[in-house]
């Protein structure tokens, strides 16, 4: 939000072509096919890093257990080490105290990486419009898929995962990410204490998502600059 933000490594997401594949030959037939192959491989071997904090983590455990079996989608290798994972599933409420940790873990994950925000607490803060709860993890990390529900059923999580796989395969996500630069809102700002304006129950205006401003993804460098200047 402010210029102080720069102390944080801003997450500029590289195009998710596999490392070692030079993008300069992207027009070639062979590379196109290789892209498709790489994307196919990526979508079918997502290694989740469950950032499970609360109730949603219990439902995440349900979705890896025998009734739902996330392994059917190639995502059974649950890695608690971020270095070995490429899909972060944020399952549960993220508090202000947890926020820097979440960011740190996200930064430790190697590219290409994706984020599923599972449950309304992670997506928007849910019904915790409270003094210690992050109002949506997109304040901190870019989110690819938001899964609603409190907590979402395992089916819903799997649905979100399938949607993500479709987008990985189609390359849509890659183009989307390439075009946009994500600016995290809060984490890593000047340690000098700064309060975040309170949001109240009564503020309800269309487009403001009921009392809380939606984080925007800057569409271009100019927009980003404008946003920075505005704040």
């Amino acid at each position, binding site marked *: 939000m402010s210029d102080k933000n720069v102390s944080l490594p801003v997450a500029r997401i590289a195009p998710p072509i596999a490392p070692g594949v030079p993008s300069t030959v992207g027009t070639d037939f062979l590379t196109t096919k290789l892209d498709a192959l790489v994307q196919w491989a990526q979508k079918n071997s997502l290694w989740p890093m469950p950032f499970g904090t609360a109730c949603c983590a219990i439902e995440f455990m349900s979705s890896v257990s*025998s*009734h*739902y*079996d996330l392994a*059917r989608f190639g995502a059974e290798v649950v890695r608690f080490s971020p270095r070995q994972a490429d899909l972060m599933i944020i399952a549960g409420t993220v508090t202000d105290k947890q926020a820097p940790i979440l960011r740190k873990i996200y930064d430790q994950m190697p590219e290409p990486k994706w984020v599923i925000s599972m449950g*309304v607490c992670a*997506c*928007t*803060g*849910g*019904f915790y*419009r409270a003094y210690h709860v992050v109002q*949506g993890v*997109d304040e901190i990390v870019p989110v*690819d*898929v*938001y*899964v*609603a*529900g*409190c907590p*979402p*059923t*395992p*089916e*819903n999580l*799997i*649905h*979100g995962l*399938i*949607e993500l796989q479709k*987008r990985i395969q189609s390359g849509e996500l890659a183009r989307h990410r390439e075009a946009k630069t994500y600016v995290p809102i809060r984490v890593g700002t000047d340690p000098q204490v700064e309060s975040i304006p309170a949001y109240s*129950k009564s503020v*309800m205006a*269309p487009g403001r*998502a*009921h*009392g809380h401003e*939606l*984080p925007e993804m800057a569409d271009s460098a100019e927009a980003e600059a404008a946003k920075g200047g505005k704040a």
Partner: protein
Amino acid sequence: MPGKVVIIHPQEPTLAVRLYLPLLQGMALTLRKFLANVFTPSVRPTIEYPEQRREYSDRYRGRHILKSREDGSLKCVACYMCATACPADCINIVAGEHPNLAYEKYPTVFEIDLLRCVMCGFCVDACPKDAIWMTKDYEMSYFSRKDAIYGIPELTEKPSDTGVGGPGYGYRPYYGASPAKKAGQFEPSGLSLLPMTLARNAAINRVPPPPPKPPAPAPAKPAV
């Protein structure tokens, strides 16, 4: 008081336990499960989700729908009851004056932020007009937060909600308690047992009926 505090004494490990033999029992159990799963698909617990679906009850609290009148207009009269009852404050209503005087008010904006909604069903309980129900639809994942704010077009009930392959109705006002009872038939969860006249009289007098009395004590026996 029946029952008691029982002291469990952990058994002293027997020779078999010391020789790790009970591990074999565990392995046998696992092997049995494995073989059963391989050779009899019917015992597999796995629900192959996109193809198969778990059957949820008729009270399942999923995506909301707004019910319509017979003429196609929404039943909602924009009374803000659901928005008030919502603990997540995820319902946004803007009321307008309905051209049909009989309906008086209607919502010009009715938005539910499904990424705030905690699916508690309080909006359904609060609605005095039977206008908001829930479905059994749980597939709610979005690529942006704005996609998740459902307005009137998305919320209005569609034939696909209840048609073949659709999710079907979930939580609704006191209905759907059991599959045996048809939708549309009241099942006021025991409250109907109260004679309506009693309730009416009590309500008119503004005195709620007394809470149910504990079972009457046995007639006092003469002291022996």
